[in-house]
């Protein structure tokens, strides 16, 4: 039987985490290929509906990367993201989904290593959780 390969959406803010992901690349750090990136200007652009759509379309995990607290290019965008993720996790819980399928991390442009390690860790975690169960919110 073929191993389960999770499908992961990664929303990365342009200023910090996207640059961090680029740095992981230029440093030739290896991590699993499961996460595919959607670049936003700020993590606060990630609408909770995008996260729900990702899960309902069959993604197994959603990753959101933003700048460290205090470093947001847009002053407070990452705090807004944090609050939204806390609320979203409550929604996931009510839907019977494991809240670990959604992960928010602060990764700066200089933390290529942290990006690669987080991708490894998150992919492993989703592998353990298995494929996303069907949720009916299309």
């Amino acid at each position, binding site marked *: 039987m073929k191993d389960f390969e999770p499908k992961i*959406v990664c929303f990365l803010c342009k200023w910090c985490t996207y640059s961090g992901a680029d740095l*992981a*690349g230029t440093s030739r750090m290896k991590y699993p*290929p499961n996460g*595919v*990136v959607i670049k936003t200007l700020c993590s606060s652009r990630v609408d909770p509906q995008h996260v729900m*759509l990702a899960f309902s379309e069959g993604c197994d995990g959603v990753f959101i990367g933003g700048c460290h607290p*205090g470093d947001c290019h847009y*002053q*407070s965008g990452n705090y807004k993201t944090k609050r939204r993720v806390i609320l979203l996790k409550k929604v996931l819980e009510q839907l019977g989904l494991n809240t670990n399928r959604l992960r928010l991390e602060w990764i700066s442009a200089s933390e290529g290593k942290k990006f690669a390690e987080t991708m490894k860790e998150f992919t492993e975690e989703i592998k353990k959780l298995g494929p996303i169960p069907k949720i009916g919110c299309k």
Partner: protein
Amino acid sequence: MKRIGVFICHCGINIKDTVDVERLTQELETYPGVTYIENYMFMCSDPGQNNIKNAIREHKLDGVVVAACSPTLHESTFQTVLKESGLNEFQLEIANIREQCSWVHNDIEQGTHKARLIVKTAIEKLKLNESLYPVSAPVTKKALVVGGGISGIQAALDIADAGFQVIMVEKKPSIGGHMIQLSETFPTLDCSQCILTPKMVALSKHKNIKLYVNSEVVSVDGYIGNFNVKIKQRALYVDPDKCNLCDDCTEVCPVLVPNEQEEGLAWRKAIYIPFPQAIPATYTLDVDHCLGLEPIACGKCREKCTAGAINYDAKDKIIEEEVGAVIVATGFDLYPVENIPEYGYGKYPDVITSLQFERILSATGPTGGEIYRPSDGKVPKEIVFVQCSGSRDPEHHLSYCSKICCMYTLKHAKLYKHKIHNGQPYIFYIDIRAGGKRYEEFVQQAVSEEGIVYIRGKVAKIYKEGDKMIVMGMDTLSGKKIEIKADLVVLAMGIVPSEGSHDLVKTLKINTDDKGFLSEAHPKLRPVESLQAGFYLAGTSQGPRDIPDSVSQASGAASKVLALLSSDKIYHSPIIASVDKDLCSGCTICVGTCPYGARELDEVTKVVEVNEILCEGCGACISACPSGAAQQKNLTDNQIDNMIKIIASGK
């Protein structure tokens, strides 16, 4: 449907080794929307760029996906290719298959699979991209500088010297700020007035600078490049053009008021000149204390003034100005010393602040530079300096370091020793922070040659016994309790944003940090810009700093302003928010979400509008909008949803 061309780069072997570009090309050939596809060794090379240009022409492409390295590297290269081919540069998408794919994977199957998903998401996004044009607005070639201390003066002179008009607004009757109060300056011990007054005069004589003293900014409307400013100038009871500085008025004035310039160590009259070198060079009337404004009560100065410069009927004025940029240099105040009752300030006249000691040291000060203690005029033989008074004490007072106290306290001790050779200075300190150029040398010289005693520890209590001040503290190096009988105690007070800056930031709608200092756009890379476009920061309004740093920052802020004023128009990225007026319910959730004040409810239509110049495009409002009325141009919900669907399909 859009005719999309996809161009896959090998990047030599950088991409080709882990992404099977030939297979990828074949697989995507039939993908909906793809009109033309090719791969090439180096897409960013001249031949590579020409391939794209030719394909745009031959295949009538109206959108281009370049699958290559990170957009950070070559997005602008390929945008130029599009522009040169007559296409809008926003019809380009970069699929990052190098940094975020080929370089982080070893397996060619995995790499090719992921690259396919990345390119497909780029194609899906591009399908819905609009052609966008930079938002532009004209620039008013004039700057406003708020605050006339050294930072404001430097910034104003830099801008004016470059040929642009400057409006300077100062709250007090003279410019000069705190620096003009200082005696000598560290680490060179040159006289503060000697270096500052020429700059003050240069400012007052500059043909490009208009100075408003006794004035405050009451409102600022508009946006970067186009601000409308209202300035309130308090009534000028003394006409600066007529006043000939004869000083006859002060002789007859019967009112005595503590002198602010002397930090309360001397008196002044209700009509006075703040200090002899004041700019503008004129006397000023303190309306709160003058008796002459009450009919018949006084009027002595007006009678005496042969120049006819005094007019009790003067009124406040509102001045309107249009400017393109604003520099905020509102300076600092000392932490209120009353907050530390155990130090006895106010109770004992021989406990004074660092700024008061500056005045005692100053040749133009109340003692003419001779060191006498305030209570009885005795020359202090033992003097205790208390650093970190109210700073670096998160539990009781300010949490942060004031940055300059280590240096000026040492300067105080040195100047004291230079004047009172047999005197003994003691300095209570926590750490010595001497990071500036030649600062450490300044400290070392004092410690080895000047006989200053440093005691590492905090002072717990100061009280009076006989005619001595008893300073009780702890020497944390030896663990012993210390008690010093001193003649004078000088408190190196913490630094806080200047009084009134709180109201000003509300007027200007700019941000502050949790301490009340102005927030920079980025702590490392944009230290002189505010997050609000068009506002720039200088000096201690942004945080404690010394004169060299203040001057450098002021020139930095001026250079940013000059870059802005040198353009006829300002351009702004069009990747910003928009509102679908049919969907907007006017709930205003987005208004509160916007950190830039770029959203406003139109009271007539009850629909929220976006000020395109103010919007920075973060997108926080879009995710907050409950009705989907708010959208980000070229990153709409539909675009993101379609990209998600590609990733979810796994194909």
